[in-house]
């Protein structure tokens, strides 16, 4: 029977296509988002069985209340110095993003991506991890490097793809990699880092090591098969890994509903796999810290993986390549019910009597200066397309440890071509 012939007397089926609540021109109103009061969610024992804490996958761990006080069992009770360091790392990340975004607009590099509005997700988590815990980030966790006091000049060299770029100009800007920084090489292919983090953690466990792994992906990318492979392996082997889904509501132009958010939370994926799931206010640095600390202790005591959903908002465009006003309401960021992570931590510190608006202003200027100085230094090593690249020969290196004959030949051809082109490019 052909598909369009009349069938039994049944109602016609309908295909559901998700639709975000607001599009350009609409007034954003997030009053339907349930924001439970801070301090309300209980903190289970880090050895609690996953099925005793299912509610956590649907709730929202929050520490900072509306008066910016830290409340409830998840309060990590950090000292003021640590809080100020965390605040500074977030402010520095924001200033760094602004500068590098502008550098792309000025034609100094090809591409850039900011993490504005979601700084806490990478930075507070990094503060809760050990310095040698291995991180497998997506492209939006530059905050990890900054929280680990990584050199800004070194990061910028990568963004400029210049002669001091540690990745030899091979990778797209922002795809950092540093083994020393325990920061895994970022891939352009989404979610591939998820099973890799699980594998690293399995290896660490198999070797009786003490280090754990943490990985991040956007909510959009959690639709990839790699995410689900990672969850399966993490559950089966109880891998000492923290799997973070950064739910910033948008994946380029696609809202979270296209990754399944109309049906359930991202933390709830954990329930099906039988692993611990936490849903966290991602704009509350203390909640992110506390959740990561909990998951790290769980992993370190052989109680297995944790999947953490960070509920946050991508306050700016996806990258330098898109214009968000084409697909979402312009006032979403301002209306976001969970505020801005930097402002919230700042207000908390002010409330503690450990900080002031004046100090914040001075710090903002300091970090902007710091970034400017670093940029000047990095630009001396070159910007993209202005000749200060790694020598041509590096193109063929590290494809393999030992260069096979065909690459040797191709290298010779490339050098001959460069000579024929009057040595346009720099060689050794």
């Amino acid at each position, binding site marked *: 029977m052909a598909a369009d012939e009349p069938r039994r007397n049944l109602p016609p089926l309908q295909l559901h296509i998700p639709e975000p609540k607001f599009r350009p021109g609409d007034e954003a109103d997030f009053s339907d988002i349930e924001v439970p009061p801070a301090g309300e969610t209980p903190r289970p024992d880090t050895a609690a069985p996953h099925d005793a804490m299912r509610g956590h996958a649907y709730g929202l761990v929050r520490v900072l209340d509306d008066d910016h006080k830290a409340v409830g069992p998840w309060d990590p009770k950090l000292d003021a110095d640590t809080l100020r360091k965390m605040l500074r790392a977030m402010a520095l990340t924001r200033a760094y993003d602004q500068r590098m975004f502008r550098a792309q607009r000025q034609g100094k590099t090809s591409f850039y991506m900011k993490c504005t509005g979601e700084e806490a997700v990478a930075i507070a988590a990094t503060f809760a991890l050990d310095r040698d815990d291995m991180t497998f980030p997506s492209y939006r966790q530059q905050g990890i490097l900054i929280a680990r006091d990584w050199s800004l000049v070194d990061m910028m060299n990568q963004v400029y793809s210049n002669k001091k770029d540690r990745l030899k100009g091979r990778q797209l800007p922002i795809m950092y990699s540093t083994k020393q920084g325990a920061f895994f090489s970022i891939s*352009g292919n989404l979610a591939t880092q998820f099973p890799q983090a699980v594998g690293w953690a399995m290896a660490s466990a198999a070797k009786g090591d003490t280090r754990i792994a943490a990985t991040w992906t956007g909510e*959009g990318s959690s639709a*990839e*098969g790699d995410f689900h492979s990672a969850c399966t392996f993490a559950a089966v082997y109880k891998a000492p890994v923290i799997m973070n889904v950064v739910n910033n509501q948008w994946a380029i132009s696609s809202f979270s509903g296209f990754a399944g958010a109309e049906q359930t939370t991202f933390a709830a994926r954990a329930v099906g796999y039988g692993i611990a799931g936490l849903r966290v206010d991602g704009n509350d640095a203390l909640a992110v810290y506390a959740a990561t600390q909990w998951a790290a202790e769980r992993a370190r005591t052989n109680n297995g993986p944790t999947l953490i959903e960070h509920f946050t908002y991508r306050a700016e465009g996806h990258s330098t390549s898109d214009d968000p006003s084409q697909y979402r309401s312009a006032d979403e960021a301002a209306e976001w019910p969970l505020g801005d992570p930097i402002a919230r931590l700042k207000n908390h510190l002010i409330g503690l009597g450990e900080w002031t608006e004046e100090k914040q202003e001075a710090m903002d200027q300091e970090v902007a200066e710091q970034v400017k100085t670093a940029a000047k230094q990095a630009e001396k090593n070159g910007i993209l397309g202005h000749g200060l690249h790694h020598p041509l020969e590096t193109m*063929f290196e590290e*494809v393999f440890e030992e260069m096979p004959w*065909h690459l040797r030949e191709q290298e010779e051809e490339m050098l001959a071509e460069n000579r024929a082109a009057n040595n346009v490019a720099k060689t050794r």
Partner: protein
Amino acid sequence: MSEENKPQETKPKNMIQAINSAMDVAMDRDPNVCVFGEDVGYYGGVFRATAGLQEKYGKTRAFDTPINECGIIGVAVGMATYGLRPVAEIQFADYIYPGLDQIVSEAARLRYRSAGEFTVPMVIRSPFGGGIFGGQTHSQSPESIFTHICGIKTVIPSTPYDAKGLLIAAIEDPDPVVFFEPKRIYNGPFDGHYDEPVQPWSKHPASAVPDEHYVIPLGKANTLREGNDVTLLVYGTMVHVALRAVEELGVDADVIDLRTLLPLDIEAIENSVKKTGRCVIMHEATRTSGFGAELAALVQERCFYHLEAPVQRVTGYDTPYPHSLEWAYFPGPVRTRLALERVMEDVSGQV
């Protein structure tokens, strides 16, 4: 003649607009045609190839998908076996690999394994190729992976006019087609001279793209230029690199735009190489096991006794596409010239 009675002049189209028009025409003619992929629906695709289609044909015929290429291609196979004609977009060819099993083991073999009962008339569209400083995951040319699979067609246009006619043919084809769009020439016929501004398509005759339905049959090459001394086999961006190089060097060449890699227009190739006795094959993809290897094998099998010189390949190198050394990697004018000089050397070593 009054202004109103003048025949409607078609506005010149760039490649994106031509591709968009192909889907528009196909969707208008056949309610079974639907388009989907990451950011394809509301936004109209990150390159805007599907812009306006959701508005015009509704959300069930032009829609966004989860970020899952295996799923996108897998559901396209399922929809096609139901009787739809899905046109799935993979945002960059570099991201097609998670969907490879659904292509290799499923789409390409269903007709055969079900003895013709289940067929997969689907198209996978995907921007491919480098030249946009996209780094190694926004620059690859994986076409030879697909020509190596039995049961799938591979099409690569080089102009707006061809893009529209070929895409309509692909959508109407009863078998699965991978349709790779050279993104470097979406806006203009880039010819490898990266230090010069690229002319927009509107200055090129192939931007005269009719609004109506037309088809360029799959499997037919296009001889863009006729000559007697050498045959250049090209497709995609390299078509424009070849034409410019031949013109600059004053070489009397046949330039053949293959347009469809599989099924291949072997007759056009054979006739040309038998006439010229020399052959240069160009592609941006890495060299080893690239489509050029297949072409070189076919040429020597069929034209061996007519050949005056070894077949030459102008290709990308066998490394990932580097970001900062993009132009050293790209097979541009100099690599083309050196290959032409090699192939034109006669047995006595004279040019």
